[in-house]
């Protein structure tokens, strides 16, 4: 009965710690997902000079094609852009379609969609590279916004990683301590088995098995609890912000992540059990208590 309640309380502590760990991982994961979705809109527009030659255009196209930072490219020639402008602005600016100068004002351009995780410095370098290319008038990629965004992401990501690491460290500390206490309460049992000539594997196996089972059941409980809390949280947020695409993209653990979390949870308690039992099962811890007058 005492053993059962000890096992139960140990499992409860592990459950709580693992839930915290999963929670901090989900926070980090969803933030990254959010950033990624946002970053997918990273674009660069390379405006071309009116007098760009065919060779210059082809050279630029080759350069764009060979750059790994660029995911997709769309070329808009003057006629196409003009057509778009006219379609969008004709009703607002009467007489626009008749302006002969309009064609000269509108430049041809390449619209480049960049990789979501491209660093601002890389984008800046790419921009400078295009800027130096013959036939390029101007390169636009929202430099100010990108720099602010990168700093913000860095700060939030550092804060989240720090919080996650603190929670992970503290949780692992609690897990190893609670398992150590659990094993330590059976110190005399271990000593009795040593006295009777039990080998290390015979003594350690039940403790390691118990550690692995405690870890396994606790991590399953923690996945269940965090899953339940995640669903509740998502439902609440969706109700509050129904149109936000970021809210819709909130994700729980994927299949591989679940497997890693599950095995990691088992491994953490297994290792804690291993170190605790190794500390106690030395073969030299005596049941004889020396009395001194």
């Amino acid at each position, binding site marked *: 009965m005492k*053993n059962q309640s000890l096992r139960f309380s140990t499992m409860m502590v592990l459950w709580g710690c693992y839930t915290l760990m999963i929670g901090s991982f989900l926070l980090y994961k969803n933030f990254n997902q959010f950033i990624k979705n946002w970053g997918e809109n990273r674009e660069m527009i390379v405006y071309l000079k009116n007098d760009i030659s065919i060779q210059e255009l082809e050279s630029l196209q080759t350069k764009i094609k060979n750059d790994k930072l660029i995911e997709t490219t769309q070329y808009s020639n003057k006629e196409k852009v003009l057509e778009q402008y006219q379609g969008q602005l004709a009703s607002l600016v009467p007489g626009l379609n008749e302006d002969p100068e309009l064609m000269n004002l509108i430049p041809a351009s390449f619209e480049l969609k960049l990789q979501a995780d491209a660093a601002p410095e890389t984008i800046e370098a790419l921009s400078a590279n295009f800027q130096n290319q013959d036939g390029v008038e101007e390169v636009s990629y929202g430099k100010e916004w990108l720099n602010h965004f990168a700093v913000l992401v860095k700060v939030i990501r550092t804060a989240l990683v720090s919080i996650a690491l603190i929670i992970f460290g503290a949780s692992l500390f609690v897990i190893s301590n609670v398992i150590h206490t659990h094993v330590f309460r059976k110190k*005399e*049992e271990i*000593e*009795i*088995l*040593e*006295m*009777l*000539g*039990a*080998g*290390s594997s*015979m003594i350690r196996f039940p403790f390691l098995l118990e550690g692995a089972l405690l870890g396994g059941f606790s991590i399953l409980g923690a996945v269940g609890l965090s899953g339940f809390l995640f669903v509740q949280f998502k439902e609440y947020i969706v109700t509050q912000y129904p149109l936000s695409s970021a809210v819709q993209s909130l994700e729980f653990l994927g299949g591989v992540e679940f497997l890693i979390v599950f095995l990691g949870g088992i491994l953490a308690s297994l290792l804690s059990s291993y170190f605790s039992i190794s500390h106690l099962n030395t*073969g*030299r*811890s*005596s*049941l*004889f*208590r*020396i*009395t*001194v*007058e």
Partner: protein
Amino acid sequence: MIEFQHVYKTYPGPVHALKDVHFKIAKGEFVFLTGPSGAGKTTIFKMISAYDSLSSGELQIGDYKVSELTTKELPLYRRKLGIVFQDYKLLKNKTVFDNISLPLIIQKERDSYTQRRVREVLDQVGLFHKKEQFPESLSGGEQQRVAIARAIIHQPGILIADEPTGNLDPELSEEIIDLFEKISAQGTTVFIATHDQTLVKKKNKRNIHIQNGSLVQIGSFVQNGSFEAKSL
């Protein structure tokens, strides 16, 4: 056979727990180890059961030189011993039957042999009717008999007992010592540490007396109660 050859044990401090301890106990002999608390009795038992190392000297137990035991040999060596404690050291969550069968389970004996041997020793210690009970439901004397049964089930060559009657009344103490005598009669070397001079005097057995870590007397109490000393 137990043979201490000029054994010294010094703990940090320094505390000289054993000083030039030198004696020999033959196979099948029944010997008492007496002396006041802190004299070094338990240290001697710690040496025999290889829980502690010697500072110098030599200790031979049967075919084993205790100072040369490796970590791997340690469990195998301990399987040759039977150890009894004043406070029994039984596993509280196991029945009498399960406690007694532990040494044979550890030695991976066949189940049928284990069952038969447990029944035999339970008969020997007179506790067959209590085999399904847990230690906490037994009296002190009964618990000690369970501990003795566990210590002899694997038929060890040597049985050591540290104050086995320390928690028992005189009548029960004598019962327990009688049980040890029977075990000794079957060829097991029995070495018992005790404070109980009355009990030692009653039995005409060899007595090793230790004080401040040194042997002061080896001999035996004869029938008229006087001590017949032998050379150290």
